[in-house]
């Protein structure tokens, strides 16, 4: 096995994976008339890298006790999670087709009753404290599973995020890795204008975390950073992203926080993504 294969770099066509996942997310939004499309598009590359290359898990046994855990703390991007779980075979296509329909377990925010979902998120500020508990449990049980949590930048408005930040630093939860999908928007405005978010990376450093800034759409960069061996501290990746990434008329346009694409818009997007 050469080094590239060993570390997961080889033969992954990230562009194709990324395009297919984006089309899936567009279709899900259209099918369910569900909001938060742009939020899902801004983090889909991060999810793709985590599930393709980083997380140890068994698609046929989502509750395998030794699995690495991923918590989508920004639960409003549920469609991105469903698309990735379907690609990994945790969900099948018939389940995906129920998204947003009556009696479906696939709700617009992830339900703990759905296999593959680690926490009920959607109310912001819950994922990181839960991730602390999971990281602590791994340590108490003398196991080696890790926990990853993806937060939004708007979510960092929540006080509970910073409560969790202090706990993780105090207990040096090095098996915890958090990522902020820093797309510079929240529901009603620029995240820096709603509250004083900057300097976001320095805030996390000041809270005692090992912080790195990354390009949240550069799969290979994400992969190599996430594969790096952690030190003594909990890790935070501030991932610079573009809301609505990948579809020209959605990029950095916050109207797509709530808008649902028409069939015509999906067709245009498919052409842009090379999947017409």
């Amino acid at each position: 096995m050469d080094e590239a294969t060993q570390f997961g770099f080889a033969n992954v066509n990230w562009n194709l994976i990324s395009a297919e996942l984006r089309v899936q997310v567009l279709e899900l939004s259209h099918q369910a008339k569900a909001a938060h499309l742009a939020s899902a598009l801004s983090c889909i590359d991060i999810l793709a890298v985590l599930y393709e290359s980083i997380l140890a898990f068994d698609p046929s046994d989502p509750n395998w006790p030794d699995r690495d855990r991923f918590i989508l703390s920004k639960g409003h991007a549920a469609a991105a999670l469903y698309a990735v779980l379907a690609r990994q075979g945790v969900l099948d296509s018939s389940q995906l087709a129920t998204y947003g329909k009556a009696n479906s377990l696939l709700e617009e925010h992830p339900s703990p009753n759905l296999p593959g979902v680690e926490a009920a998120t959607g109310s912001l500020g819950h994922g990181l404290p839960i991730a602390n508990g999971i990281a602590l449990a791994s340590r108490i049980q003398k196991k080696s599973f890790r926990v990853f949590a993806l937060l939004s930048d708007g979510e960092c408005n929540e006080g509970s995020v910073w409560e969790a930040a202090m706990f993780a630093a105090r207990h040096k939860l090095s098996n915890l890795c958090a990522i902020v999908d820093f797309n510079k928007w929240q529901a009603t405005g620029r995240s820096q204008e709603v509250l004083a978010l900057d300097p976001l990376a320095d805030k996390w450093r000041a809270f005692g975390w090992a912080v790195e800034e990354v390009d949240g759409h550069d799969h290979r960069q994400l992969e190599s950073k996430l594969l790096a061996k952690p030190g003594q501290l909990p890790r935070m990746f501030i991932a610079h992203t573009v809301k609505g990434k990948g579809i020209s008329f959605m990029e950095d346009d916050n109207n797509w926080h709530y808008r649902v694409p028409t069939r015509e818009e999906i067709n245009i997007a498919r052409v842009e993504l090379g999947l017409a």
Partner: protein
Amino acid sequence: MRNAFAKAVNDLADDHSDIVLLAGDIGNRLFDEYKKNHPERFYNCGVAEAGMTGIAGGLAASGLHPITYTITPFNTVRCLEQIRLDICYPNYPAIIVGTGAGLSYAGLGATHHSMEDIGLMRMLPNMHVVCPGDAVEVRLAVRAAVELKRPVYIRLGKKGEPQVHSQIPDFTIGKGVILEHGTDVALLSVGNMLSVANEVSTRLRKFGISPCLVSLHTIKPLDDELLSQLFLDCKKVVVIEEHGLAGGAGSAILEWANAKGVDASKAVCFGVKDAFLTACGSQEEARCLLKLDADSIISSVQEYF
């Protein structure tokens, strides 16, 4: 009660290696024994109740059995949404312990009073609400909650409450404990009102009224069988709780009576009216102000006989 809790959780942690105790920066020295015996299963989560409850959710999600402990309003009202979503929604085995029920910390002011916790906790699906009446019941309640492996809220007083039970009663979550049998009036005591209710019972008997004294330690689920019997047998069913009348045990019993089709007009609820208590001294003095003392309850009950 809090000493009984500390001893119970220490003893249980010996046999239950999944117990993890989380405290919100209180209980100085209270958990020394536990910390000595189980150092890797105690965490002071700081003055951060939302964060603590989320940690409990993550521990429970990973197969452990967390117990969170801090002052009642901070461990219920403050972190209500974390209890709702991180514990109750996934139906995890986790125990939320509030110390300082009702007016236990009367003198500390309304910030530390707890008149809403029973109501809020019983509104949460999957939650069990347990209010032990004395130190004996605390030990039994903690053991029962650990064995239940579901979301449980345990409402403690503080320390030094009179011990009412002279022997160890049968204790099951969801089943009231009958301390005295009687046929005229049922006295349903909730949590730390047990010693007051016990005094009410003793003195009513001297007046020729026959009370059935019950420690109704579980408010959710209610003891359907016992309540049905008491509403059938007794002229009045008196609920005594150090909690707001809105949403508390009395309110729960009125809802139960309405749903059951029994005569809800038999119920008489003693609790706290819809107001903050802004001037008070000790717990006993506050109870007198609010007519939750034995004298006040006895004279009200006597009017029905």
